[in-house]
């Protein structure tokens, strides 16, 4: 497995190595009809690590992320969370989902609820906290993403960056072990991308385990601990960011990065 070789070759050991991985993917496959979205992906995510999934659109990054929390059920291979194989049924995956937070490209905040309502609904319905407890937790999470003054605002009254920060708070309120980010800044205006990336960076510094599907190469380079490059449903290269960005070994990685104007 390339993940292991890369770690061994590297002078500084991969974060969290020694401990069993939080997430382990082995030969994961997913197709939609005749279209093969993910074809035999194997990788691992260690505790406290920020793994960035990069690659051209349609390369299967988002699908792999959605397979992780069971929004898509995999067709082959296996995914393990904390050494336990993920179930292949809806109800089993529902329980697993509570332990993973997800942030969507289009925020998907609930428009009929305030910021506070958006963040407290999960703890209230899923964790069965009382309204008071859930709202207290929600306030703390909104404070954490810098939106303590927006608790009574509806999504439509917030900027894109603020909405995405509420969405991050909503996921964090479930106290997840892993956070999944599906192109969290792709729908944002350039001037609000920074505020979302800063929140994510702080989260990473606090030791949150994160998988980030992103086109923000600067973020992947400087915040990522491990970078996975996908193309046409498969991993073509993975390694620490210095290796991927400064001396990619695979031709297609070089093409992809130069296409984005990445100069190394």
């Amino acid at each position: 497995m390339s993940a292991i070789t890369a770690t061994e070759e590297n002078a500084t050991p991969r974060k969290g190595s020694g401990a069993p991985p939080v997430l382990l993917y082995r030969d994961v496959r997913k197709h939609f009809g005749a279209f093969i979205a993910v074809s035999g992906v194997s990788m691992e995510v260690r505790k406290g690590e920020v793994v960035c999934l990069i690659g051209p659109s349609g390369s299967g990054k988002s699908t792999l992320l959605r397979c992780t929390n069971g929004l898509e059920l995999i067709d082959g291979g296996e995914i393990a969370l904390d050494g336990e194989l993920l179930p292949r049924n809806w109800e089993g995956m529902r329980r697993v989902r509570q332990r993973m937070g997800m942030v969507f490209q289009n925020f998907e905040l609930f428009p009929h609820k305030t910021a506070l309502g958006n963040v407290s609904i999960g703890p209230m319905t899923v964790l069965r906290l009382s309204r008071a407890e859930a709202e207290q937790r929600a306030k703390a999470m909104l404070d954490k993403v810098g939106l303590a003054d927006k608790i009574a605002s509806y999504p439509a009254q917030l900027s894109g960056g603020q909405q995405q920060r509420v969405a991050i708070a909503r996921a964090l309120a479930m106290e997840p072990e892993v956070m999944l980010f599906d192109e969290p800044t792709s729908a944002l205006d350039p001037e609000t991308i920074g505020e979302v990336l800063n929140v994510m960076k702080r989260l990473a510094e606090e030791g949150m385990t994160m998988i980030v599907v992103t086109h923000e190469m600067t973020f992947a380079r400087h915040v990522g601990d491990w970078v996975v490059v996908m193309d046409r449903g498969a991993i073509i290269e993975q390694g620490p960011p210095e290796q991927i960005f400064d001396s990619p070994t695979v031709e297609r990685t070089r093409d992809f990065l130069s296409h984005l104007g990445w100069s190394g």
Partner: protein
Amino acid sequence: MNFDWSVVWRNADVLVEGTELTILLAVTTMVIAIPGGILLALMRLSGVRALSSTSACFVELFRNLPLILVIYTAYYVLPVATGLSFSPITTAIVALSLNVSAYNGETFRAGIASIRQGQSEAAYALGMTRWQTTREIVLPQAVRRVLPVLASTWVSLFKDTSLVSVISVGELAYTSMRIRAQTYRVLEMLTAMAAIYWLLGYPQAKLVDWINRRYAVNE
């Protein structure tokens, strides 16, 4: 042509009673037909074949039969089918509820289908069950979105209650027609009836407009 408007004032008390019954019929029907419609919509969208085809058959049957036929049928069939005797008012409410539930079922189905998949996925991602997702996320948005349609169904229903006069339910239309038959004051009674329906209906339509503005979902 001579008009004698005193016939209206002399019968004011029975007209008020008839009006009250009209309101009662419309309100009771809607109170039944809103949950009824939601239930039909959820059955239709459940993905369980038996439920969705039952719902589809119900909707297509009652949506495509003339209401007056449903009223007559309920009047003659209900006692025979159940072995119980029903008051004309109960029969009227059953018939109206069948009809309006069918319409509401289609309304809610369209409303639920209009909520994008990402909203459900966001709820699932938190670990919500399908039912929690429907109750907390999808339905509240769907209901707001279909409020204008529900409102126009309500306005139609309010007028359609007059059809149950054919089974001698003493609502506004039946009462007016009876006074007309007793006094031969046709134009006076038709005018009084029109005035009462309009005066009740118009503020409702305005109220509905206000509700739409108040509860509009901004995205």
